[in-house]
């Protein structure tokens, strides 16, 4: 393949050189220093009123620091928004379509340029006759934060990997002087990186795209196999990195419509009724979902759509969610609550509050059945008149079709039935198949008022993503770092050894157990597959992991 990759005369290389110049490179640090000194000089200006310093001199110093704070802030902003992102003459998709004839160097980001420069520098130093793709990996591990983060998540020792790549590069053909020649594997990797970037709707090739581009090459596959990983694992991890970056970007963009919509609306709430009794015995999911940072509802997208459609119907607006505990039934409610809160649901549901009626709390506080019914009637009346409530009752089968009264259970079908017929009353009941068949189906007239929505299975891939996001929330709390292989092991072993629970619950439970174990019972700070095997062995009393393989060997 003829090489068309040429960094030499590209705008992005020029941008990288500018970004590397002293004035831009340190603008961020200098900005912060100037701000700190400005605050300090404010203190001295205050002292000047006591006659300790000259007032005019202190004002001049104050002006100096604020002016330089503005200058460095502007330089930093100019670097981030303009210099680092020079205009492109054509789109990356078009360039990738043209394949090897196109110079893909134009489409690199500054971080990607630094990777290529580091690779070239390495090869130049050793007077190699070409810049092989493996030098790109060396360069990525040398200069790219993204690459280092991804490899840390993979649980691969970066120093040792760099050493191995260095040794393999030493074996390449050398000459008296270095030749900047990009061989076929380099160009193939860049083309693949370009395709990945296009697939992920990017205009430029990020560092992680280069890594994915290299991942299909033989030497990289060997590295992955050595570490018990597959190319899919690597791709999944970079996809997760994309998600993280998107979330962090959204969080930083406080001025965006989505970020501002988090604050809700005071005026709209004034047009709705109070729910005083309901508030005493309920959980407002709006308060929970508004603070989500990394959390997202993964899977169940179709079920959320179905629930929305059912609740927005002009007639009966009641939904019965049917699925076994642990299949992610609650995540459907969370997804609905989040969409409604952000105004991203259907117009009929936007800005509605999703409120879970805590029946357990209600029944534990009041024993008198008649009083319970009277309070429930009041609650349903409030939910209906408020005009912005979607009421949720979990384990709905515990409260309908009861043959006789049992502790902690009460038949509410009589009280609820009259409200379920009102179109403005929006209700979601959550139950399982056993509850549906043994209790709810006993009352066909009640069942007819509901639209039944069955909860589908969460796949292992979706569970992986759920656990990856959950680990981000748990890591700072327990001060541990969860590797990707550990999460993969959790899904694999939970699927094999915990048949009693469905995904994603068994994965979530196991992840929590493993993190608590590593944090509290070991001196380790990194959660590895061995820790998962250990916990599974303890829970199931079946030797798994290294122990299992050792036993196999002795047999």
């Amino acid at each position, binding site marked *: 393949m003829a090489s068309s990759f040429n960094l030499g005369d590209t705008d992005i290389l020029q941008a990288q050189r500018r970004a590397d110049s002293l004035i831009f490179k340190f603008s961020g640090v200098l900005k912060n220093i100037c701000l700190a000194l400005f605050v300090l000089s404010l203190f001295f200006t205050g002292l000047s009123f006591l006659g300790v310093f000259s007032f005019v001199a202190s004002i*001049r110093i104050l002006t100096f620091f604020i*002016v330089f704070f503005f*200058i460095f802030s*502007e330089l930093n*902003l100019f670097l981030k928004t*303009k210099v680092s992102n020079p*205009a492109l003459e054509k789109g990356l998709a078009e360039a990738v379509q043209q394949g090897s004839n196109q110079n893909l160097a134009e489409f690199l980001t500054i971080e990607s340029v630094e990777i290529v420069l580091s690779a070239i520098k390495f090869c130049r130093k050793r007077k190699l006759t070409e810049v092989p793709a493996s030098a790109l990996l060396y360069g990525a591990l040398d200069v790219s934060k993204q690459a280092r983060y991804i490899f840390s998540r993979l649980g691969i020792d970066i120093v040792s990997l760099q050493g191995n790549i260095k040794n393999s590069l030493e074996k390449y053909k050398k000459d008296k002087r270095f030749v900047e020649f990009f061989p076929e594997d380099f160009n193939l990797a860049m083309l693949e990186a370009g395709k990945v970037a296009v697939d992920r709707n990017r205009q430029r090739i990020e560092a992680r795209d280069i890594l994915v581009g290299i991942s299909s090459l033989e030497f990289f596959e060997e590295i992955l196999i050595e570490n018990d990983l597959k190319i899919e694992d690597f791709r999944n991890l970079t996809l997760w990195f994309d998600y993280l970056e998107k979330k962090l970007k959204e969080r930083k963009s406080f*001025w965006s*419509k989505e970020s501002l919509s988090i604050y809700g609306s005071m005026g709209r709430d004034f047009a709705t009724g109070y729910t005083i009794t309901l508030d005493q015995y309920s959980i407002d999911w709006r308060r929970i979902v508004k603070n989500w940072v990394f959390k997202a509802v993964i899977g169940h997208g179709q079920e959320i759509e179905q629930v929305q459609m059912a609740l927005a119907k002009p007639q009966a607006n009641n939904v019965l969610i049917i699925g076994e505990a642990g299949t992610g039934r609650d995540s459907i409610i969370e997804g609905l609550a989040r969409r409604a809160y952000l105004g991203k649901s259907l117009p009929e549901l936007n800005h509605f509050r999703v409120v879970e009626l805590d029946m357990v709390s209600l029944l534990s506080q009041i024993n008198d059945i008649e009083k319970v019914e009277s309070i429930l009637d009041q609650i349903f009346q409030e939910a209906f008149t408020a005009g912005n409530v979607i009421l949720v009752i979990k384990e709905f089968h515990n409260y309908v079709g009861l043959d006789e009264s049992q502790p902690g259970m009460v038949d509410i079908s009589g009280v609820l039935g009259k409200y379920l017929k009102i179109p403005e009353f929006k209700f979601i009941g959550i139950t399982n198949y056993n509850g549906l068949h043994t209790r709810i189906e006993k009352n066909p007239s009640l069942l007819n008022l509901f639209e039944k929505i069955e909860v589908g299975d969460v796949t292992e891939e979706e569970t992986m993503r759920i656990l990856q996001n959950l680990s981000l929330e748990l890591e700072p709390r327990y001060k541990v770092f969860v590797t990707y292989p550990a999460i993969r092991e959790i899904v694999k072993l939970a699927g094999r050894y915990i048949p009693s629970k469905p995904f994603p619950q068994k994965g979530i439970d196991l992840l929590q157990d493993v993190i608590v174990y590593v944090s509290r019972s070991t001196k380790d700070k990194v959660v590895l597959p061995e820790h998962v095997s250990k916990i599974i062995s303890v829970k199931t009393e079946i030797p798994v992991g290294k122990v299992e393989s050792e036993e196999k060997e002795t047999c």
Partner: protein
Amino acid sequence: MTNNIIITWFFWHFYEAPIFLLGVWKNFIGFSVELFSTPLLLKTFFSPWRKYNWSYPRGLDVGKILETFTSNLFSRLLGALVRTGLIIGGVLFQVFILVAGLAVLVGWICLPAICLAGLLFFLRII
């Protein structure tokens, strides 16, 4: 990208960045309208406060009818009163957003001149 960084900066500072700031300003104006929902408050100005509404009794019990009428009237008046407060608050907030947005935009455009004036002041030229 033009090779001249000064021209690039000039274009960015006086054209691209102000367009971005106008977008941000627009988002904040939308946010202020959404936060107070002024159009909705005006539309529901005389609606009962928090939907507190009493049904009129059946039959011709004048006392009860008058009592219900008074209660409903007070509910509507209370609603109008609170909404008036929120509308005033909303208008003030929107005016603040408008003024602050304009100040930021003008401040940004004049930033090079402000910095230059500040430096001259520091150097005791002004």
